[in-house]
Structures are given as C-alpha cells and as structure tokens.
C-alpha cells in the first residue's frame, strides 16, 4: 500500500512550488512592503542624478564625438560602480545577508526551515535570489531606466560597450555579496558577518586606487592588472577611453570573464558548503 502511494507523493512534490513558497517567505520576511519600493526609488534617483551629469553634460559640453560620448558613458558607470547607487545596493545586501541570513542562522530559525521537506539547494537559491538577486536586479533596472530617460540613443549606438560596462558594474556587487554570504554561512553570526562585510567593502573599494598608486610611474603593471580582476570596469574604461590604448579589447574582456568566473566559483562553493556541510546549530 505504501509503495503504491509513493509515486503519488513524489508527483505531489513540486520543486518549483517549493521554491516559490520559500521565495514568498523570504521576500515577506526580508523585504516587507515599502522597503524595496523605497530603496528602488532612491537607487533610481541616484542613477538619474549621475546619468544627468555624466551622459548629458559631458557630451554636450563639447560637440558630440564618439570619444566624448563614450567618456560620458564610462564616467556614469564608474560613478555608479563606486557612488551612491552602488552604495545603497551594497548596504541593502549587507543588511539582508548580514542581518537576514546570518541572523536567521544565529536565531536557529534556519533549523526550522531546513526541517521542512525541501531541498537545501532550493533554500540556498531562495536566499540568494531574495537577499542578493533582487537588490542587484533593481540596481540594473535603475541604470537602464536612467539611460532610457537621459540618452536612449546611446543604447543603440554603443550597445556592446554599454552592455560590457553594465556587467562590469554589477560584477563587484555580486562578488561582495558572494564573499559576504560565504562569511555569513561559515561564521553563523550576524554581527561578525556585518563587520567582515564592511571590511570587505572597504578593501574592494581601495584595491584599485592603492595598486595604481604603488605602480604610478610605469603605468598599469601586474599588480594593477590583478586588481582589475576585482573591478573589470577599469580595464574596459582604459580600453575605450584611454588615448594610448594601453589595454586591448581582449585583455579587458579577459578581466571581465575572469571576474565573473571568480564570482560564479564563489557562489557555487558557497552552495556546495550549504548543501553538504552546513549545520544549522
């Protein structure tokens, strides 16, 4: 009798439904009603201010030329990457992962969630999508909206540089999130995760200026090129904007690919640890 029921039970469990249920719980817990709405508005406002300055004034300050327009595009992306929109997103991720995920583990709430008949990988995916995916998506949407409103013509004219620059802007945020998530899952303490997250954020922010400062006289050397793996927007900017063309397109693309390979490896490593070794006690 039990054997006859087993296939029906198996059919009754839908992984997609379970994931949707987990997502529902996580979105409800982490992002209560006006939270994401408010933060998205702030992100968009910050992106609009930046884009207005970079895309509009830089390009109209002189007669439009491909260099001046691309210069504006890269000023916008570098400022987004280091400025207010990225800061808002980072702080949101820091709160959601540091307080949300690590706090859940610390308060033993994750024990309850993992006792449900759900796949651990689904729990992980749900946390990643809610605490990291949504803020990063909102950041990307804000940047896109800024382009659509301020200079939609640039999207068609410079599709490839803009797409690569957008990816290079999102990459460091994802890398920061992956490191933070790994720390949160490993140390299982909200306070320590937050402190480590802030330290990682500052380290990531200073790594390129510091390496450039160390190697200033001879141009970008091996140290700076290694630092570019953490911030691929810099080699892209060097390739498209620098007059001497010190960085080839292939090298800029390799930096971006290397960066994303590291990000994917971090997320996969974290998933493996969470599904195989993690003890929610």
């Amino acid at each position, binding site marked *: 009798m039990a054997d006859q029921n087993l296939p029906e039970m198996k059919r009754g469990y839908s992984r997609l439904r379970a994931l949707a249920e987990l997502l529902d719980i996580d*979105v409800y817990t982490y992002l209560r009603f006006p939270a994401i709405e408010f933060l998205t508005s702030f992100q968009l406002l910050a992106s609009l201010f930046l884009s207005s300055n970079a895309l*509009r004034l830089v390009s*109209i300050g*002189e*007669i*439009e030329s491909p260099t001046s327009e691309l210069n504006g595009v890269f000023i916008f992306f570098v400022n987004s990457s280091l400025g207010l929109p990225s800061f808002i997103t980072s702080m949101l991720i820091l709160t959601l992962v540091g307080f949300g995920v690590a706090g859940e583990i610390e308060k033993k709430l994750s024990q309850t969630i993992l006792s449900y008949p759900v796949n651990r990988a689904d729990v992980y995916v749900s946390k990643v999508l809610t605490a990291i995916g949504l803020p990063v998506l909102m950041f990307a949407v804000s940047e896109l909206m800024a382009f659509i*409103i301020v200079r939609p013509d640039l999207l068609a004219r410079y599709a490839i540089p803009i797409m690569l620059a957008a990816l290079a802007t999102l990459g460091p945020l994802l890398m920061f999130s992956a490191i933070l998530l790994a720390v949160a899952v490993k140390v299982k303490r909200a306070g320590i995760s937050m402190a480590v997250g802030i330290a990682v954020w500052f380290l990531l922010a200073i790594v390129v200026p510091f390496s450039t400062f160390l190697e200033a006289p001879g141009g970008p050397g091996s140290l700076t090129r290694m630092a570019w793996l953490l911030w691929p927007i810099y080699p892209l900017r060097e390739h498209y904007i620098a007059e001497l063309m010190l960085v080839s397109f292939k090298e800029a693309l390799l930096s971006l690919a290397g960066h994303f390979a590291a990000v994917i490896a971090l997320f996969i490593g974290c998933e493996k640890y969470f599904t195989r070794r993690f003890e929610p006690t």
Partner: protein
Amino acid sequence: MRRLIDIVGRIGFISIAMSLAIFVSIPLKFSGPRGGGVGGPLNPNEALTFPEFGAWRLAADESLLVELEVSGSEAAVYVVNGTFPRERPFTERKDFEELIEEGKIQVLHKWNVIGSAQLEYSPPDTPVSAMLFIVNEGRIPLELREYQLSTTSFLLPTGRATAVSQLMLLAGIVMSAPRITKTILKMFAKRAIDR
C-alpha cells in the same frame, strides 16, 4: 494564483515607486558654470584671433548666462540651432559661416559686444538644441579678458521623463490592481465575518 497575484502586485508597486521617483525629479533644475567647449576651453586674457572661436552645445531646455569682457575688437556671440553634419567637422569660423549660408543652421540670437556685457538667453517653447559661439568680428585680435558661462537646465529631459513616468505609473496601477482588490475584498470579508 494567489502567489502570482502577489508577485505581480509587488512588481506593480515597485513600478509605481519608480514612476514617482522620476516624477519628483522632473521639475528639478541645476545651474552652474560650464567649462569645455570646442576651440577652447577659452582661457581669459588670451587673444581670440580671427579663425578661433569657442563653441558650446546647449540642451533643449537649457537657459544661458554669459558674462564676458573683451578688448581689442568687437566680439559676436551667437546662439544657433540646427543639425551639424558629422561628416563635416568644423575647426574654423568659415566652416561655421558656410553652414549658416547653406541654411543648415539658423541663428537664434546674436549679440555684439564691446567692453563688458551680461547676456541671457532662454530657449523658446519649441525645443531646440542650440550652440553658443563667441567669435571675433573685427580685424584686430580680440582679447577675451574674462568670461563666465553658466547654464540652468532641468535635471532630466522633461518630455521623455514625463512620458516614461506616466507609462510606468499606468503599468504599475494595472499590475497592482488585482492585489489591491484582493486586499480590499479580504478586509470586507473579515469585517463581515467579525460581525
């Protein structure tokens, strides 16, 4: 179905929030000095000889304030509108004059300046994408003793921003309507049960 209504409703709320953010930014203006320019940036106290000129591109909704002091000969300050052919980059004043003669660009405003002057220009209601030129009208080298170019403009292109904001608001209302209806119905049902 319940979950779908919730998710779509939430996206609708986000869309409304974004449209409000754009809507708030539409009337914002900023003003400040403008640098850059073609044939420049013009440095004060440098002679602006005959073929040289300074040119700045202005946005459609940008108002302009130029304060300048010249000596030597007379300066002409032009605000022009039109399409500048990309295949004909101009580096000299004669290229600029040819474009005016051919009717490719039209002169919106012209001032002649001797000594010091304060010039203001606000764009007409119809949007224009104007350019400002400072050129030497005389034969003696013109010395631009001082100049300050400041502009006031809207933060965003108003027309496009309004359109995008309205579109997002409409999409947001449509997407969140089922969720709002569900919440209201639930509230009434709860009251009815309580009674």
